[in-house]
């Protein structure tokens, strides 16, 4: 039986009458970069929040390195690092103070902070208050924070959301190099097909809370006879959304 970093089995999450996730099942192998793709409201963020122990499943089961995210949530939190889509940092801390605080929370050495400094690429700006940072700088700080502690699983929700091309390219490279070097398993969601194609070993397309298609980018492109993932996406979920 293979060792899975993440196992999601028949996961359902209801908010009143709304079925945010409705029978989601997938698994992520150790050291893999796994992408969740889907339109707005497909249930990506809800699924990631459940894996990150922030929400509990209404039905189904989620395991992270064999630990149940409900019963063993304290254990799971030690293994993961979660980057929400909209994550802020304390504005009256300097970037360096923020990284140091996070290193202390995870009980990792100063070497991790030095990694964070390198990963962020913010240089001397780390000595300034976070309130002076641009959106791109804040996101770089957040990605550095999430990865520098070398979690066994990094959960990245739209890691390059809202960034300009230069910042997005920088971050993609930083993520790819770092997780390969330290064998960090990554599960990420994104709307950026180029990013997913570039970063992910395997991809799951989610629609209405369920998996609509799953495989490596190459497999999916071949299966749907598409030139790129964007075409796959439109063919898989476009009909459901009423797109041509």
């Amino acid at each position, binding site marked *: 039986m293979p060792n899975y970093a993440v196992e999601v089995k028949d996961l359902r999450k209801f908010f009143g009458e709304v079925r945010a996730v409705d029978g989601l099942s997938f698994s992520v192998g150790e050291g893999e970069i796994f992408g969740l793709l889907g339109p707005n409201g497909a249930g990506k963020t809800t699924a990631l929040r459940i894996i990150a122990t922030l*929400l509990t499943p209404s039905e189904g089961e989620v395991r992270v390195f064999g630990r149940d995210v409900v019963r063993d949530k*304290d254990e799971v939190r030690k293994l993961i690092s979660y980057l*929400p889509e909209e994550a802020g940092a304390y504005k009256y801390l300097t970037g360096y103070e923020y990284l140091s605080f996070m290193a202390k929370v995870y009980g990792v050495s100063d070497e991790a902070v030095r990694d964070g400094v390198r990963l962020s690429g913010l240089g001397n700006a780390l000595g300034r208050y976070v309130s002076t940072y641009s959106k791109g700088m804040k996101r770089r700080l957040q990605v550095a924070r999430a990865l520098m502690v070398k979690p066994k699983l990094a959960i990245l929700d739209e890691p390059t959301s809202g960034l300009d091309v230069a910042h997005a390219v920088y971050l993609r490279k930083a993520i790819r190099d770092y997780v390969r070097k330290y064998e960090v398993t990554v599960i990420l969601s994104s709307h950026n097909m180029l990013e997913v194609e570039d970063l992910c070993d395997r991809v799951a397309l989610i629609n209405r809370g369920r998996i609509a298609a799953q495989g490596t980018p190459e497999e999916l492109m071949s299966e749907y006879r598409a030139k790129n993932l964007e075409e796959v996406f439109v063919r898989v979920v476009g009909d459901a959304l009423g797109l041509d």
Partner: protein
Amino acid sequence: MLWDLTKKELRNTLRDKKIIITSVLMPLIIFGVMGLVYGFAFSKAGHEVKESVSRIREEGTIVVCSMDSGLFTNLVVNFSKSLAHEVRVIYGCTESRIPGLLAKENITLAVYVPEGASENLTELKPVKVGVYARTDKASFTSSMTLNSLMSAYTTSLTSYVRTKILASKGLQPSEVISPVRAEEKVFFRGAITEPNTLSELSGSLIMFAFAPLIVVSMALGQAASSMAVENEEKTLEVLLSLPISRIKIVLGKLMGSLVVVLLSTISFGAGLAIYGYSILYSTTSTLSYAGATETQPVLTASVMTNLINPWFVVTLIAGTFISLLGVASLGILLGSLAPDVRTSSTLVGQLSFLVIIPGFLLVFLDLSTLGPAGQAIMIALSPFVAPILILKAYLENIPWVTPATLLWSLAFAGTLLYTSSKLLNSERLLTLQHKLLHRKLKTRVKTKHKQ
């Protein structure tokens, strides 16, 4: 155009129920309650004066401490017998013995008659007597009662003496206005002081009671905004995903908020020390019996020194800390529900009555007038303003109130702390926030439909 802009502003503002509650209902409730409290306090004080006079007749003791053995002393004794249940006369008694007598025995009033009083009376010279009342309570009611009691005694004694003596000499009482000049003093917790001191003390201590009220309100706002800012700055989700226990997160917030509030408390303490020092060493001019102007301190140092004992200071500090802990926990609860600092400020404004109303009640109402059941209700209502309750209980000499207040406030703070940490179970918190947001959206949609 201006009217359209104003109309838009009014619609946008007044349709928010929170604004109506904060701006219209809260002042109405707070000042309405304050009016009721004032009225209650005054009527209670008036009732207490009547009660105290009848108590003297039933069980009161007046001691006449006299250096005179003639007619005047007899008149004072006879007059006192018409007032009190028991009258004792000590001849050859110097004025300096009076504090000792008042300290040891349960005496309502002590009257000092100086040497040569009877001769003075015969020669139609005014007689100066000392009227001493004893109390252990520094409160609005007790100072009003004492002043009324002593004033009534002095006026009646003067009238009695005038009628009896002057009539025997064939003179009309109106021919001599005041044969007795009384110097009224109060024996308060081991020290002799001016009657005004007590009312000054009660008045001045209102400010001391307001200080915790302000500090506690600040703690509520500070803790709420420290949590709401986590939502506003989008840091909460990351915080909740970190390998830190919920109780540690809440305690970290609490300690951070308390340190900030502590700085304010120290600043308030310094301000109050200046305030207290100014009162302690300020002087006032009073007209003495001889018609000369005397200058004396308003609050004698001995009264203040007697007031401050270590147990009181310890309980006051403990009460302040516990109240701050409770109110900061409540602030964290409110702040965690608010999506931003502005909403948390509104929530804090709406719930500030939990602090303000019991605070005002305690500042202006005398606990001794409420009886044990009323005092227990005040304790139950005041977990966030324990220091005011402790201060009042100490000044009014109601010992059981202090430990009961500390225990109740501690239990309340502990419960709130536990609830806050439970709420930080992210599922519950995010669901509650979602519900609040959903309700807000529903209201907006309804408003749009109406338009």
